[in-house]
């Protein structure tokens, strides 16, 4: 293993993480809800979702965040590494997987671990593991 010191951004990542933690805390303490993005979207796709307006407004805030950012500073780089076929395959897997797994990086990785849920700890280990394995296979075994 070699660490990519050139791209390592410890302070902005820690600060960004703290901001995410603050947002999750606010949503939990104020609204009594888990800031899990796949859960919020998935439940809105089902009929008769309770608290739909709060969920929509949370997602709306998330959606307009880059617009607010753009008023004050240049947006950080967003560099995609995959073509449309990879994006579609990845999107479907993320959609199906997070619904069967009841959560994603935010719901399990941040909120679930913070409330010491054993399910979320297991889920986080699983998606981290398969994420590491997938990149290993695609980059180093197949060399794509």
């Amino acid at each position, binding site marked *: 293993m070699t660490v990519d010191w050139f791209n390592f951004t410890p302070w902005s990542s820690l600060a960004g993480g703290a901001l995410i933690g603050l947002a*999750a805390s606010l949503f939990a303490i104020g609204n009594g809800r888990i800031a899990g993005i796949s859960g919020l979207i998935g439940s809105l796709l089902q009929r008769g979702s309770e608290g739909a307006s709060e969920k929509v407004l949370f997602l709306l805030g998330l959606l307009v965040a880059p617009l607010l950012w753009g008023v004050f500073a240049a947006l950080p780089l967003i560099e995609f590494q995959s073509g449309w076929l990879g994006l579609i395959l990845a999107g479907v897997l993320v959609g199906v997987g997070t619904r069967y797994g009841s959560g994603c990086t935010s719901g399990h990785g941040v909120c679930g671990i913070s409330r010491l849920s054993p399910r979320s700890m297991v889920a986080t280990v699983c998606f981290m593991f398969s994420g590491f394995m997938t990149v290993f296979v695609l980059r180093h075994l197949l060399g794509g």
Partner: protein
Amino acid sequence: MLKFIAFIAGLLFGLGLLLAGMANPRKVLGFLDLTGAWDPSLALVMVGAIAVAIGPLTWARRQSRSLLGSPMQFPTKREPDRRLVGGSLLFGIGWGIAGVCPGPAVAILLTGHWQAIVFMLAMLGGMLLFTALENRRSR
């Protein structure tokens, strides 16, 4: 007030993702590339987020109502099962292919990248597929 707080929380969440580097698929894949040139930054995103959220969420989970008086909607199930493991493994494969997870997928939708729109449509399709399969199972 509930709606206002929900909007502010979403906004802060999005700003945090952008600041942290989570909105950049290349950076996410750099973190997932353990055996290549590994960028550990995103581990610190989780450290920062959990360090801030662990106190408030531990408090919140013991309450029956939120500070604004709405009932707590926290999950109650605690034991892992096969669906959780299988679903999370599939999610990780998708995450490892494109370097995008659901939060950033929303946060980069309006930044003018066609890839963000394709990914979002496919993700919504995947979620609808889950709902359709579940409805069929319960029938």
